[in-house]
């Protein structure tokens, strides 16, 4: 079991290293296959681990495996250790499963890109990092994985290196995540100081409950990391920009796995959070606020990927809400279903973008339903799952979260209300997207790409000259692809993986039906026992209302964007506010970046050059001037020399005689 999980962890790393080291000795396609194979292998290993773990008694399902002390000194030791328990196995399954699909999808999607090898190396590295995160056997290894996913995310967002916007987005993502890392590290320092360890079992077993400050600070620090990684308020601004990366990256990292790591963290460290209920409430509140805010902003986005990105943010808000109120099983379940349908949505969007030569502006799309029917279907499945329409996956997971919120008193009620509002917004923006893209008449732009001759469509798909100056034009391809012609909805590797995900989105929700059967929660129960348990009527009411709100949103969207029955309300102020993402970016610039730059410049001008560097030249100049004085006395006149002798002797005599 432990061996299997080590294999699971190391296979992608091996693939990444192999691709890097082999360089040009491996073909581009070979790199893709290698990466895919490694992740599939990891998935297989996870399955094996899962199978073996189920064979154990419930209490016996926590296993640690330490290779050596990764870092240590004196009595302080942090092992390089992994943890196999239900929670990590679940995450492993999600990560490797969805990962395998997405990496496989990439083989088709990235086909022909000049730097394919690099892409797959990064992807494999990411999977490794993510696995390290979820398998880490102590907080330090978790943090290592945490940082490494941030790194891979940075690398992949900035994959198209010659695009300034991509690079900027990558840096932004990394720096914000580094902030989160820092708060986590601070929390760890507190733990080290008070428990002398970062091992889960020792930290959780320590009695910290008496020290409110301590636990609150620790939980806050952890929450900071989680918020940064999961793009929740107030550290959410990097996620939309991260859409600069290739679409499969967005699917894997910025939808399915990495961004949900925050939820995983909260669930993993729930014993600490439970000691700090206020922070827990804060987490839930942040989740709720984010889900509403993201939903609102998604309404005005015009970039297909950004809409989905905000939706991701919003959905993670639900997960945070769940984790914050202690509905860990529900949160994790939503995490899983969300991975399915959100990956699906992204990949479907990827096909659209792929087909439209990198166009991402939904206003220039339309009528794709007939041109890309399979994609339309897939999108529809994903959208319905997202909105939470039964029997799609989202219905099962999201509604149970809302129900659980009702178990938390008045605060929970507010959260519940916000969650419901969120479902309405979800319906609205999701189907705004669907209708704008697929319904209606194909725009001239679309026709040019897809109907003018489907023989050329795929080939054109990577040509750049059609929209040379669009800021967001996707597969960046300044390089035309020579051999592979993607007709319409792309090669098998893409369509097949989308199909699998669609299937999962369709049926994945049946894994757990709150109130009736709860295998996911049960599975997780040994590691994360929920704090709340929704009653039957809460479940029912939530489900009904949520579906109703969601469908209402869909209806409105239908009215506005499909049938044009009504105008979208034009509240320009609000619109501007939303289009500028509530001015968070600008505020951060003003609050942090600009002062830092000003400080740096000011210090350079005020301290560095005049004082630090100038002091040397000042001293040197002063010495030289003094030296000039001294040598000026050296007149070359014998008289001066004799005089100096006589005068100093006179002084000497006077002093001697007077001191005696």
């Amino acid at each position, binding site marked *: 079991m432990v061996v299997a999980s080590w294999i699971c962890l190391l296979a992608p790393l091996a693939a990444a290293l192999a691709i890097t080291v082999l360089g040009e000795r491996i073909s581009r396609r070979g790199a893709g296959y290698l990466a895919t194979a490694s992740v599939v292998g990891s998935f297989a290993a996870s399955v094996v681990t899962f199978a073996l773990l189920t064979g154990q008694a419930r209490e016996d399902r926590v296993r640690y495996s330490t290779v050596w002390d990764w870092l240590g000194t004196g009595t302080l030791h942090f092992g390089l250790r992994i943890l196999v328990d239900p929670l990590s196995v679940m995450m492993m399954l999600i990560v490797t499963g969805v990962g395998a699909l997405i990496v496989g999808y990439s083989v088709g999607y990235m086909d022909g890109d000049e730097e394919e090898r690099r892409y797959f190396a990064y992807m494999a590295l990411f999977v490794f990092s993510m696995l390290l995160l979820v398998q880490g056997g102590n907080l330090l290894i978790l943090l290592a994985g945490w940082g490494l996913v941030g790194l891979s995310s940075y690398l992949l967002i900035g994959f198209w290196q010659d695009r300034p916007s991509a690079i900027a987005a990558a840096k932004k993502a990394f720096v914000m995540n580094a902030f989160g890392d820092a708060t986590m590290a601070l929390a760890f320092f507190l733990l080290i100081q008070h428990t002398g360890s970062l091992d889960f079992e020792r930290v959780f077993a320590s009695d910290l409950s008496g020290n409110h400050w301590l636990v609150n600070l620790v939980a806050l620090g952890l929450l900071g990391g989680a918020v940064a990684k999961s793009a929740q308020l107030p550290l959410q601004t990097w996620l939309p920009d991260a859409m600069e990366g290739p679409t499969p990256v967005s699917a894997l990292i910025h939808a399915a796995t990495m961004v949900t790591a925050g939820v995983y963290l909260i669930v993993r460290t729930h014993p600490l959070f439970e000691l700090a209920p206020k922070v827990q409430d804060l987490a839930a509140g942040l989740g709720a606020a984010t889900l509403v805010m993201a939903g609102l902003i998604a309404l005005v986005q015009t970039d297909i990927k950004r809409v989905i990105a905000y939706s991701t943010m919003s959905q993670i808000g639900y997960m945070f809400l769940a984790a914050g109120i202690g509905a860990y099983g529900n949160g994790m379940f939503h995490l899983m279903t969300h991975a399915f349908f959100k990956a699906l949505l992204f990949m479907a969007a990827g096909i659209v973008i792929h087909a439209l030569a990198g166009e991402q502006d939904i206003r220039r799309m339309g009528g794709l339903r007939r041109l890309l029917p399979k994609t339309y279907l897939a999108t529809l499945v994903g959208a319905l799952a997202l909105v939470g329409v039964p029997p799609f996956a989202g219905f099962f997971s999201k509604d149970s979260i809302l129900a659980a919120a009702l178990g938390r008193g008045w605060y929970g009620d507010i959260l519940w209300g916000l969650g419901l509002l969120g479902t309405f917004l979800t319906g609205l923006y999701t189907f705004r997207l669907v209708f704008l893209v697929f319904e209606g008449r194909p725009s001239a732009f679309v026709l040019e790409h897809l109907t003018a001759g489907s023989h050329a469509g795929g080939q054109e798909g990577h040509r750049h000259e059609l929209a040379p100056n669009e800021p967001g034009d996707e597969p960046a391809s300044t390089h035309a692809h020579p051999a592979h012609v993607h007709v319409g909805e792309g090669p098998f590797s893409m369509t097949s993986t989308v199909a699998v995900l669609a299937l999962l989105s369709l049926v994945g929700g049946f894994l757990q039906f709150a109130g009736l059967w709860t295998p996911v929660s049960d599975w997780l129960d040994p590691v994360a026992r929920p704090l709340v348990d929704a009653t039957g009527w809460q479940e029912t009411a939530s489900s009904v209302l949520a579906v109703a709100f969601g469908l209402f949103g869909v209806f409105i969207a239908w009215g506005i964007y499909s049938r044009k029955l009504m105008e979208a309300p034009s509240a320009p102020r609000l619109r501007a506010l939303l289009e500028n993402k509530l001015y968070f970016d600008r505020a951060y610039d003003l609050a942090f970046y600009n002062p830092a730059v000003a400080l740096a410049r000011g210090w350079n001008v005020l301290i560095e050059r005049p004082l630090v560097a100038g002091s040397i030249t000042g001293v040197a100049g002063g010495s030289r001037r003094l030296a000039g004085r001294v040598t000026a006395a050296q007149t070359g006149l014998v008289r001066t020399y004799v005089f100096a002798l*006589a005068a100093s002797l006179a002084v000497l005599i006077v002093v001697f005689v007077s001191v005696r």
Partner: protein
Amino acid sequence: MKGPDVAWYLAVSGFLFGTGTLGVLLRRSPLIILLSLEIMLNAANLALIAVSRHYGHADGQIFALAVMAVAASEVVVGLGLIVAMARRDLVLDVDRLTTLRG
């Protein structure tokens, strides 16, 4: 013995020494400076001999004789230098000897 105290001789010697000092300090001709140096040495000699008389042993006189020889030596070298300079057509003025300075 009769006559003034040794102290007075020392005073005379001091005065003479000061005169010589002033000569070195103020004059520009190397010749005069050499002469002034002689005065200084002679002043010291006077002091030596006076003290020698005071203590009644002749060490000071011996010293004075040696100083005389030394003074003569200095004069020889000094005059030699002056002659050499004169032969190089250098102006005999120590204030003009300022190629070496700074």
